């Protein structure tokens, strides 16, 4: 009798757990850190080129890195879209992707980028990726 009760209560217990957010995903957290590093590296590389020589900062010199990061962001977006109960993080990656494309487009159109634009872009993405990472890390607080 007791065994049946325990089995029934175990079933009741697992069925009654409340789930509002997707659990922590270590792979996604690592991806966020990796993309953040790539962005920082690209901006620091461009910053290392002389500001007074526009040809040294021509878009074509960095196009491959820009596309590589865009591909990573697309993959991250797909991973997030496939997770259930994950609307907020999905939207956050959309914001990162939209902004990345916007800054890439500007560099491509002007065909150079100033120190101060690089500075602002770099800080923006550093902070945005901190927000993205926090969105993943807070899931470690889930008590199940």
């Amino acid at each position, binding site marked *: 009798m007791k065994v049946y009760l325990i089995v029934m*209560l175990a079933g009741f*217990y697992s069925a009654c757990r409340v789930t509002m957010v997707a659990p922590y995903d270590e792979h996604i957290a690592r991806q966020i850190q990796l993309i953040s590093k790539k962005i920082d590296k690209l901006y620091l590389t461009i910053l290392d080129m002389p500001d007074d020589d526009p040809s040294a900062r021509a878009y074509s010199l960095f196009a491959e890195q820009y596309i590589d990061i865009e591909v990573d962001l697309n993959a991250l977006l797909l991973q997030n879209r496939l997770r259930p109960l994950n609307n907020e993080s999905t*939207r956050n990656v959309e914001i990162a992707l939209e902004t990345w494309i916007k800054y890439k487009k500007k560099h491509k159109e002007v065909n150079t980028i100033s120190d101060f634009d690089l500075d602002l872009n770099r800080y923006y993405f550093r902070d945005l990726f901190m927000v993205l990472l926090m969105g993943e890390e807070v*899931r470690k607080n889930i008590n199940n």
Partner: protein
Amino acid sequence: MEFDVDAILNDMVLAVRKSVQKDYEEAETITELFVQANKARYKKLAEYRFSGKIDEQSFKSRLQDEKLMLEAQFNTLSIFTKVMAQNAANAVIDVLEKAILSGLKII
């Protein structure tokens, strides 16, 4: 079978309070981190605008980006709120489960 509803409800309230209090402190830390990061960026942006390094159009474009940043920050805080609610709800279920099990003399 013993089932003291008042005691169970009291335990449920305590469980929620404990769960929310712990998570709330961390939510405050995260919010403070966002506020400090925003302050530093706004300061930088204002300096570049006042010194004329960025024009009006670029400044307005950057402000749009800042709106998106705020949206992202609120999204992350929303995740945390859901985690808090989930923890609190499951803490209540734990209390109820323990009460039923002990009432049935299973634990």
